[in-house]
């Protein structure tokens, strides 16, 4: 759980409620100890700067190259994208997802909204999506699986073991997406070992 800034506490609680061992990551040794990583909501520009200044960018890129599964929500999805549209030119992107992301694409805070979403792997019951100054996924590449959309814009995507969400499942009591990520991560890690 990357814990430089943002809604870390809610993600930790959700992961623990799913039975996972979840710890905050702010240093290299904490990153080394993690099997999978959550990039939380928050301010992507702030996290991006702190990752650089405190020497976490390179180790994180190495772990990602080694196949560490990532769940990215909102600002985390921006960090995890290939390219940020309407962001700051010096913003860091990790290229976890073969997709571009447009920052604040739905408008300012007064346009923040909630909506019921049909998320493919979760079956029939809708998932309440909380969108806060949310980013929009654009120009997805071939490796990206779209799990949910609003109009024609993907709001939940997956690529290999990784899960990327424009909304905040950690702000609801619904644990299904955290469970889904933990299953995805576990099967990816097992096949890595095998």
């Amino acid at each position, binding site marked *: 759980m990357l814990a430089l800034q*943002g809604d870390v506490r809610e993600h930790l609680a959700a992961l623990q409620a799913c039975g996972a061992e979840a710890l905050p990551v702010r240093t290299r040794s904490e990153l080394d100890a993690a099997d999978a990583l959550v990039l939380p909501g928050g301010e992507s520009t702030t996290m991006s700067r702190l990752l650089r200044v405190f020497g976490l960018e390179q180790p994180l890129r190495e772990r990602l190259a080694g196949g560490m599964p990532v769940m990215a929500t909102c600002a985390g999805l921006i960090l995890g994208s290939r390219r940020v549209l309407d962001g700051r030119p010096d913003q860091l992107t990790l290229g976890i997802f073969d997709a571009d992301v447009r920052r604040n694409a739905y408008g300012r805070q007064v346009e923040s909204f*909630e909506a*019921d979403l049909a998320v493919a792997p979760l079956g029939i019951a809708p998932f309440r999506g909380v969108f806060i100054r949310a980013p929009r996924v654009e120009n997805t590449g071939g490796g990206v699986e779209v799990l949910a959309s609003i109009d024609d814009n993907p709001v939940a995507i997956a690529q290999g073991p990784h899960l990327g969400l424009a909304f905040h499942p950690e702000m609801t009591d619904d644990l299904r997406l955290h469970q889904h990520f933990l299953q995805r991560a576990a099967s990816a890690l097992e096949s890595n070992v095998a």
Partner: protein
Amino acid sequence: MTAEKLEANGHQSTATGGARVKRGLAEMLKGGVIMDVVTAEQAKIAEDAGAVAVMALERVPADIRREGGVARMSDVSLIRDIMAAVTIPVMAKARIGHFVEAQVLQALGIDYIDESEVLTPADEENHIDKWQFTVPFVCGARDLGEALRRIGEGAAMIRTKGEAGTGNVVEAVRHMRAVSGGIRRLQSLRRDELMSAAKNLGAPYELVLEVHESGNLPVVNFSAGGIATPADAALMMQLGCDGNFVGSGIFKSDDPLNYAKAIVAATTYYDKPDVIAEVSAGLGRAMRGIDVATLPKEELLATRGW
């Protein structure tokens, strides 16, 4: 995209302006620093330094204190310039009880309104009915009762008041301890003692019950008012706040950009003294500051709001 549009496209029960999205933005700001800025250029410096949001003002509290006069909502063009200059959320202040200033700020599309004691109050009895707005509000508080009254009126975020514009952290510490001490006391009570506690706090019973059960405020709580150094910022985090507002402390220091960067780092690594030491080196002078005990009572800002 608007809620209406989403609904027209077949998505059920889409909603803007609910308590969850309002409180949610504050959750996203946690662990971060919100900086007072008076120009678009300062706003860019704040964003470069890693601020999670900026507060658009005409004068920082230290100058309001020095110059006197009636302090009101900032000039609309200035707020627009600052909103255009940065990609992070922009907040602005309305006077206590001045719901029309708040309506204007909402119309401008500001991301958060601070109903603030730093401005001259417009109503000496009533605060703004914040439930009527789509835009979320942050309000100041000196203790648990005041925090719960503001949340009862619809505040989606609380900040301890401290004593703005002094560069002296003593009041911020007092208020943070008062809020967290108040929470601990409520937790220790029996359920049949909560109504009396609500009466004594002057706070809504339902919120008192919620705090008793959860051990937390129902919204995010930042600290504010007098934070001037990286160590001050880390002190407030170790005392249990969720993040920091820094007003005069940054742009009244010798080297604002590096000061801002250091305060951001100290807020993230608040429990790592070696990091705080490292970022504090070579910063030059902090703002000069005022001993709060020497201020005449009528010049105290924290006592505004009820």
